[in-house]
């Protein structure tokens, strides 16, 4: 068992901040790495130390194994936490850390390879007796794609072999769409993972996406921390997650947990990890893939189990044994996470980068926010559009939903469009409230008209008009320039908001 001296966090955004908080709570200093676009990013401000590693494109900074290892050497960091995305499931990076004598806070490079290559993971799962979705067990290319597609049948899912996070994922309804979808998926996969291999799976209709959180240590112990329900997705990316799943029976929960622990033990997995399953209407779980890293939606599990998964990752990497056994764990209450993206839900979730001109976040009981931004931050165009995660916990599912609605009502972000109004629609939708939904929920919702407050526009227009009147009068009577008239910072970024008389 070793004790780390300093941890470098090879990531950005909310997960980098999340990991640094865990470091600080464990009494460990943290080192941020940052690209040229991220000098003022929150993770740089929260870290104890910070090292610039390259230009804005992630390929030239956050994905540069050499730069990250140099930063660790330079700062004396003896462990690296990769967060999710970027280098988190890059076996070569894990191996490079191992070779450099730096602890990679994650599984062995071998586990990453086994599970990271999705077709290999499917083969191992089959060998371990875990059922998988029918499809190809190997990546396919060229003419074989059409042939295998015909064998499996439509609709089917086209997936990146090196994939994760919805990138390079395409639902193909029929043979006519196949060629275009393959081109798009390979392009996205190449750009996201540097690997354009794809494979095919039968699309499970009316499926729910349910995943199981696991932990394994260096001493052969493994537990599961129950499930997360992740069926609310747009563009095949999760927007809302919760735990427990309203769909699982206690028996199915125990069964899926046992399957997950069996696979973890079989591969000697050492870290937090997640096994993703599709569960069809017949309540039959099919293993999809295993994510060998912390998951975006890990907070819902933390809130219902009372344990800190990121601290546990670090402690496991130090060689500590798991501090609890399976029978010590229980789900208490219900937790829901809503992801806040800088996207415009009224325009097909188009990205909406820009400066966060004004921001008021909610507070109070049963609420957690894991944010990667702050008022005044310019959200870069180079990275993922997730700004923040809002998580609500309550004694019951209904209480958690009501709490989330209350929190969303308090939340205000101006300057970019966000998914706040969209997740509010989800929270008040009768099917969501009833727990009656599957992965097609978001598509169905988009087709329904939103019933917003019909008269609220009057308040909005009145507020704007009064503000204009007050601004005009103030400008007339302004005795002198106010607000340290245009520091470089003000001049560069806030011009449109400040000063210019209408």
């Amino acid at each position, binding site marked *: 068992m070793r004790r780390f001296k300093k941890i470098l966090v090879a990531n950005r955004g909310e997960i980098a901040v999340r990991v640094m908080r865990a470091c600080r709570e464990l009494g460990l200093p943290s080192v941020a790495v940052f690209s040229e676009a991220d000098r003022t990013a929150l993770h740089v401000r929260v870290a104890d130390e910070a090292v610039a590693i390259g230009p804005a494109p992630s390929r030239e900074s956050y994905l540069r194994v050499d730069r990250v290892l140099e930063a660790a050497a330079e700062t004396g960091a003896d462990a690296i936490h990769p967060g999710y995305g970027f280098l988190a499931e890059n076996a070569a990076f894990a191996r490079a850390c191992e070779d450099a004598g730096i602890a990679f806070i994650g599984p062995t490079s071998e586990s990453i390879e086994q599970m990271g290559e999705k077709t290999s993971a499917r083969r191992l799962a089959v060998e371990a007796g875990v059922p998988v979705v029918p499809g190809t067990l190997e990546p396919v290319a060229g003419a074989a794609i059409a042939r295998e597609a015909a064998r499996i049948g439509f609709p089917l899912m086209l997936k990146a072999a090196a994939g994760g996070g919805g*990138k390079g994922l395409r639902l193909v309804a029929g043979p006519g769409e196949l060629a275009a979808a393959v081109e798009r998926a390979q392009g996205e996969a190449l750009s996201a993972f540097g690997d354009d291999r794809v494979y095919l799976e039968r699309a499970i209709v009316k499926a729910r996406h349910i995943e199981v959180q696991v932990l394994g240590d260096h001493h052969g112990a493994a537990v599961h921390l129950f499930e997360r329900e992740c069926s609310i997705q747009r563009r095949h990316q999760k927007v809302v997650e919760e735990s427990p799943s309203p769909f699982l029976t206690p028996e199915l929960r125990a069964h899926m947990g046992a399957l997950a622990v069996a696979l973890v033990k079989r591969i000697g997995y050492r870290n937090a990890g997640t096994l993703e399953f599709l569960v069809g209407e017949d309540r039959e779980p099919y293993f999809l893939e295993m994510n060998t890293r912390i998951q975006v939606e890990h907070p819902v599990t933390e809130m219902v189990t009372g344990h800190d998964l990121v601290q546990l990752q670090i402690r496991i990497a130090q060689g500590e044994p798991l501090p609890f056994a399976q029978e010590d764990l229980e789900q208490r209450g219900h937790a829901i996470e809503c992801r806040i993206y800088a996207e415009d839900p009224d325009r097909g979730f*188009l990205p909406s*980068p820009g400066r966060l001109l004004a921001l008021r976040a909610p507070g109070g009981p049963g609420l957690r926010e894991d944010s990667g931004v702050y008022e005044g931050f310019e959200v870069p165009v180079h990275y993922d559009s997730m700004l923040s995660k809002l998580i609500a916990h309550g004694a019951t599912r209904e209480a958690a939903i009501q709490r989330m609605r209350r929190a969303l*009502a308090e939340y*205000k972000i101006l300057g970019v469009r966000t998914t706040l109004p969209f997740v509010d629609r989800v929270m008040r939708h009768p099917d969501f409230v009833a727990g009656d939904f599957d992965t097609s929920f978001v598509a169905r919702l988009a087709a329904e008209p939103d019933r917003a407050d019909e008269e*609220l526009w009057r308040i909005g*227009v009145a507020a704007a*008009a009064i503000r204009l009147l007050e601004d005009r009068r103030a400008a007339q009577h302004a005795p002198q320039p106010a607000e340290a008239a245009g520091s470089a910072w003000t001049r560069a970024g806030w011009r449109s908001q400040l000063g210019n008389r209408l």
Partner: protein
Amino acid sequence: MILDASFDGRSVRVEVRGEAGRYRVTLDGQTLEVDYQRTGRDFASLLVDGRSYEAGIVRQPEGYTVALTGATYDVELKDAARGAGPSARARPAGPVALKAPMPGKVVRVLATVGQQVQAGEGLLVMEAMKMENELKAPRAGRVREVLVGERQAVETGALLLVLE
């Protein structure tokens, strides 16, 4: 002060009178008594007929964006034209310019000059924030010009393509 306000494709005439936090706002034939207090550089508290509203209000080039619980409005404000109220602006006829809705990179151009396209048909694919986004034809027409090439970086509002 009399203004023409437009938001969400609607236009209304607005009259505002008052001072020191007490205002009378008439819009669309209805008068609101508003107790308005700034609560920060970009926030205000409004009490209207006893009801409490919390508004985020930021300056934009042609008006303000107002965030209320459950809705955000981009409100354009202009001093009222003399005489009649604002008329519904007719959609300009003629060519339609497709502009970049965000900064990013053109990944693929799907349309070619001279091609006849349907409303909703994909014209090009832009990458921003790690996602590929297909930009679709706002109406049916013929592609007159394509002004960008693949792998080209563009800013918000950059002209991408003209449809006629």
